[in-house]
C-alpha cells in the first residue's frame, strides 16, 4: 500500500527525486529494511543521543510516507540521508543552548554482545568523529561512512565541491590532532 504511494507524490528534492517515469519501485518496507539502520546511525553520530536519533529516523520515514516523493532509482538512500541531516541540523541548532549550559552529551556506544572484546580499539575514532563540529561531521560521515563522493555530498548538502573538499581536509587534520599517535589519515 505504502509502496504504491511512493510513486504518486510531490518532488521536494528535485536532484534526488524525479517527475519522470523512472520512479523507484522499492516499497516502504524494502526502503526501511535497507536504509533505516544507516539513517539511525548517521543521526546518532550527529546528535550523540539515541532517543533523538530514533526520533529523526522516525520523522524521515514518516515524511517518506506522507509526502510520497518520486525517488530516482539508486538515489533513495541519498534522499533519506539528506532529510535526516536537515532534521539533525535543526535539532542541533535548537539544542545549542542546552549543550552550552549542560555540556555535550556523552557518546554512548552500543556494541553487540559478541563485539565487546574488540570494542576498545575502535571507540576512540568513533568518539572523535562525534566530537567534530557539525559541518565537518556531516561530510566525514557521508564520505567515509556512507561512501559518497565529493560531488554527491555537494549535491546533498547544497554546498560547493570546494567547500566539501575543504571541510574534509580540515576534519582530517582535526581528527589527527584529536587522536595523537593514531594513524587517522
Amino acid at each position, binding site marked *: 500500500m505504502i509502496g504504491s504511494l511512493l510513486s504518486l507524490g510531490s518532488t521536494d528534492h528535485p536532484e534526488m527525486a524525479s517527475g519522470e517515469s523512472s520512479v523507484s519501485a522499492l516499497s516502504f518496507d524494502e526502503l526501511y529494511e535497507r536504509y*533505516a539502520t544507516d539513517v539511525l546511525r548517521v543521526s546518532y553520530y550527529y546528535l550523540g543521543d539515541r532517543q533523538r536519533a530514533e526520533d529523526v529516523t522516525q520523522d524521515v520515514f*514518516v515524511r517518506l510516507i506522507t509526502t510520497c516523493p518520486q525517488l530516482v532509482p539508486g538515489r533513495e538512500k541519498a534522499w533519506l540521508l539528506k532529510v535526516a541531516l536537515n532534521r539533525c541540523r535543526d535539532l542541533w541548532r535548537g539544542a545549542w543552548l542546552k549543550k552550552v549550559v549542560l555540556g555535550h552529551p556523552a557518546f554512548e556506544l552500543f556494541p553487540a554482545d559478541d563485539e565487546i572484546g574488540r*570494542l576498545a580499539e575502535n571507540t576512540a575514532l568513533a568518539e572523535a568523529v562525534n566530537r567534530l563540529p557539525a559541518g565537518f561531521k556531516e561530510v566525514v560521515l557521508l564520505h*567515509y561512512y556512507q561512501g559518497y563522493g565529493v560531488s554527491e555530498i555537494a549535491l546533498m548538502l547544497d554546498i560547493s565541491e570546494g567547500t566539501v573538499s575543504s571541510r574534509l581536509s580540515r576534519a582530517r587534520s582535526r*581528527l589527527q590532532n584529536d587522536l595523537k599517535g593514531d594513524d*587517522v589519515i
Partner: protein
Amino acid sequence: MSKLDQLPEITDHVLSGLRADDSLKYHIYQKAAKPSSSSVKASRKPLAAALCAISAVMIAVFMLMGPLMGRNTASPDAVTKSESTPATQIQTIQAGSELDQSPVTPEEEKESSSEEEENEDPAQEEEITEPSAMP
C-alpha cells in the same frame, strides 16, 4: 589503509547494537496514520486570527467610545440639562426656603414680604410646599 577509511567497519563494531528494529517501524506507521501537527496548527491559525481580529476591534471600539463618553459628561449642554431637571429645581428651591427661615429683623421682614407679594406667583408657592410634605 587509514583508520578513517575503516569507519564503516569501526561503526559496525561500535554501534552494532544500534539498529532500526520493528518497534521503530511500528511507531512510524502509527505517526504516519495520525494527522500531522503542521496541519493541526494550520487549522488553528484561522481561529486564532479571528480571535485576534475580534479583540482588536473591541479594543478599538472601547478606545473610541471612552473619549466620546467623557465628552458627553463634561459638555456644558449636559450640565445645563442636568441642572434643569425637576429634582435639581426642587433642591435649589428647598435651599432657598431654608435661607428664608433664617432670623431677620422686623423691618427686613416687612420689605421682603412686600417684595414677595409683588414678585412671586402662586404656582411657585405650591412647588415650595410640595417637597416639604415628602419624607
